[in-house]
């Protein structure tokens, strides 16, 4: 079970959070200007890397805020936590 550093509440147990999938998959500004193919990409396709992954979590049993997490999908190490609208940590080598 992970321990997640809510940007507002600090370290809390994973059971207080809900997972929100890959981060930075923006809703297209004008969905109707997007091709069927690109729209399908937006709807259905997500990355599944072995390594660092930017993902969204919500502190659903706590402050109810959404935020972003950089997590290593093999070790589960959480290397960064940041609020919506903030830039992701610089890509690591």
């Amino acid at each position, binding site marked *: 079970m992970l321990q997640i550093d809510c940007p507002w509440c600090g370290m809390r147990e994973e059971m207080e959070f809900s997972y929100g999938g890959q981060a930075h998959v923006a809703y297209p500004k004008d969905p109707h200007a997007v091709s069927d193919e690109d729209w399908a990409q937006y709807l259905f396709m997500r990355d599944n890397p072995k390594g660092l992954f930017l993902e969204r979590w919500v502190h659903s049993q706590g402050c*109810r805020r959404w935020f972003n997490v950089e997590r290593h999908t093999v070790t589960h*190490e*959480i290397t960064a936590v940041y609020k919506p609208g903030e830039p992701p940590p610089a890509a690591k080598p």
Partner: protein
Amino acid sequence: MSGTAANIARIEGAGKIDRTRPLAFTFNGRKLQGYAGDTLASALLANGIHLVARSFKYHRPRGMLTAGNEEPNALVQLERGPYTEPNLRATEIELYEGLDASSVNCFPNVQFDLRAINGLASSILVAGFYNKTFMWPKGFWKKVYEPALRAAAGLGVAPDSPDPDTYDRMHWHCDVLVVGAGPAGLSASLQAGRRGVRTVIVEEAPEAGGSLLQRPATIDGVAGTEWASKAFAELDAMPNVLFLCRTSVFGYYDHNYLMAVEHRTDHLGPGRSPGVARKRLWHFRAKRVVLATGAHERPIVFGNNDLPGIVLANAACTYATRYGVSLGKCGVAFVNNDHGFALALETQAVARNIAMIIDPRPDPDDALVKRAAALGVRVLCNSVIATAHGWNRVSSVDICPTRGTGLARLECDHVLVSGGLNPAVHLYSQAPGKLRYDANLACFLPDQCIQTVEVAGALNARFSLDSALEDGALAGKRTLHTLGQAVDAGAPAEAKDELHILPVWSVQAQLGLKLPGKHFVDYQNDVTEADILLASREGFRSVEHTKRYTTTGMATDQGKTSNVIGLAILAASLGKPIPEVGTTTFRPPFTPVTFGAIAGRDRGSLSDPVRTTPMHAWHVDNGAVFEDVGQWKRPWYFPKPGEDLHAAVARETKALRTTAGVMDATTLGKIDIQGADAAEFLNRVYTNAWTKLAVGSCRYGVMCRPDGMVMDDGVTARLADDRFLMTTTTGNAARVLDWLEEWLQTEWPELEVYCTTVTEQWATTAVVGPNARKILKALAPDMDFSNAAFPFMTFREGVVAGLAARVFRISFNGELSYEINVPSWHGLALWRAVIEAGKPHGLTPYGTETMHVARAEKGYIIIGQETDGTVTPQDVGLEWAVSKQKDFIGKRSFSRSDTARAGRKQLVGLLPQDKAFVAPEGSHLVASPERSTFDPRLGSPSIGHITSSYYSPNLESAFALALIANGRAMHGKTVYCSQGSGLKPMTVTDPVFIDKEGKRRDGID
């Protein structure tokens, strides 16, 4: 009780048992006696009982191999009736007065086991036997083989009545968690405890000390046991230290989350601690972890190495030193390392029963050899035990030189074995930590771990007492240092080789000979060396595959004594070094955990929250039968005496359409949406438009996901220009709020909108039916309920039954209907007043079943019933609620090829030609009655399925809603519903069965 030759094997003056406290116990029906401080195993051995179990597959006689948690053989069924617990290790059961245990796996008894016949047939019970033999014929597995195998191979029996004990759970945070209170663990703990950091020490034994309890030692001029109890006392007195004994850490999870089970009352006997939770499951979150889990001694594989009387050297020493038990009159030791050699001598010092040490090494440590001579123990170097002999107990061994040939038979009544040490890397491996193989020490050691963990003592290859103590202190200091304490961590001490081991995994392999007898690797699962070699010959290369094929290490002992040996034998047969074959991953639990402990306090009424509304007490008093809707208990129907569901629902449905009905609608989700952009926000999340909705009015809305599929629906009212009250389906209340927040916070932070859940602020009473207006008038004489003043899809605030209320004129059944909302603390009072006011008007309370029938009669969908995440608003006939002008979540997907294609399933009504036929929900429908079997190769393709199905007293017929391909073009056609072996014809209709014109909802003014 006298004259039972009690404690014939007890060594005068030895051991730490309390001889002033004799304890009576029963084993396999025999009345026996032990002492306080005994384990069941030590008490049995003290009574000369070595044979305690039969093996899993071959039913071979087995005795204690170990004295600890790694025991593979001595599994017993403890206690009887509701307290009985199977497959407990006798080596871990603390003796208490009246203990009652029996062997598992024995029929008719442990001395004479009929199923030992399996042993005679053993040439066919080889690795992969089950896979190979029982594959065919297909049906035989379930009917014949499996029951027979289960009966023959079962371990203990589960209790067949409810567990009378209670269990508990605890969450605990600490700076340092030390696992293991042996010399290294205590040493590390003292460092942490004295520094004042929040420390937890977890020890599975009843007391601290670890190896200090198993062999003689001196620390700082005092006996090892005394040093341990002083360390315990010091630590236990510290307010920053929690010292838990009888507690096993069984799982090491991410971010230093460890779980342990504390056995709080097992040592007192069953039923003797009323109200005290028997076990407590600890959930630790530790900033740092120190693992000092010690090492397990490992056996050596030789012929009939499983005979009772053959034990690990560490176990023999423990039985003698700690329990004052001698394992026999004439013992031999078979050791290949200094540690085991020393243990044999320490045993001899106490028990005076070791005649000879057999050692394959040419040159055991000089000092040890001299000590052996002083203790009168012969040492035979360059030799091994080839095969043991005996019936139910070892009686002799064949000794063979490592070079050359020739067997010598030696009479003996017990054998001590030490094939080296396996550091207990299980928790470290779970962490997950990587292991490395140390060829010099012939064992796997902790290498690298992503988590903040330190290892110390034997786990870290510090096998001697002095180096373990030093290593523990260093681990403690390093831990404190990483916690920011001003502690000099010092340089790590160089590990010395304290074993001088000559690896001998299997004597057959060592000698290059085929020896008689069975050569066991995994005692609990009865896996032999031959099984592993067969797997290797059959092409198994990966240790993970071999493990599963042979079942090595897959029993409840998780291969604590067998894994590494099995791996070494596999590696040798593949001609590869051990590290290249790898090791298996250790998974939780390290030690078995009962379901009771896992369930903890989540039992009975606490198993899950039961959510009830303020009116619940009335529903109970009035005989409601309840339905679970998520965690809510909602009245399903209100039967009158003698009524079943069908009769009650018929009466309730009729009342709702002819007089009036009343329903508790409190559970519907309610979200208060406020802010200047509230209407714009609704425009984006709902498929229809909200900007022009007048204050005081309501509108039905449908919510889609971006893929265009219906997600939720409900009525939303405009309370003010900048304020709306949204309702959601009962089961989706939390999900919808999360959904709204997600969009607001992550996509549209610029919108000025706040959402607050108000579900439980309000209690909602729905008054429905032709008489609803009369009832409301009686309740609220000051309010105008005329159609003109209070039209459909509006709400009004006023005083109802003397209470401030908000009344919505909305309908989920086509009838004139008012939903009265009052603060929940007034919910019950309002409900009672409504019931009272409704009496002259035939007001009938109804439940969810009638609600479902009534809404289905009108073709209204239920989210999750007509929809399943693959259904668009258009599919279920809600085009009218889909805006053509504005954009909203999901709209883009309506033009996707699959969403826009012809032939999608559409919502229709179905009327069975047999009016009594209530089709099962979920039934598939076919277009033609031809070739109508269930065989997919022959049958007609499914054209859709039934989503809702009821009997309607108003229609005097069963009816259904269904999703059918191109359904709207099929009105009037016949489709067929599979029912048992036949097909039932049903006519496709419009989904609205009652009042298509919608006249009833206004009632009569």
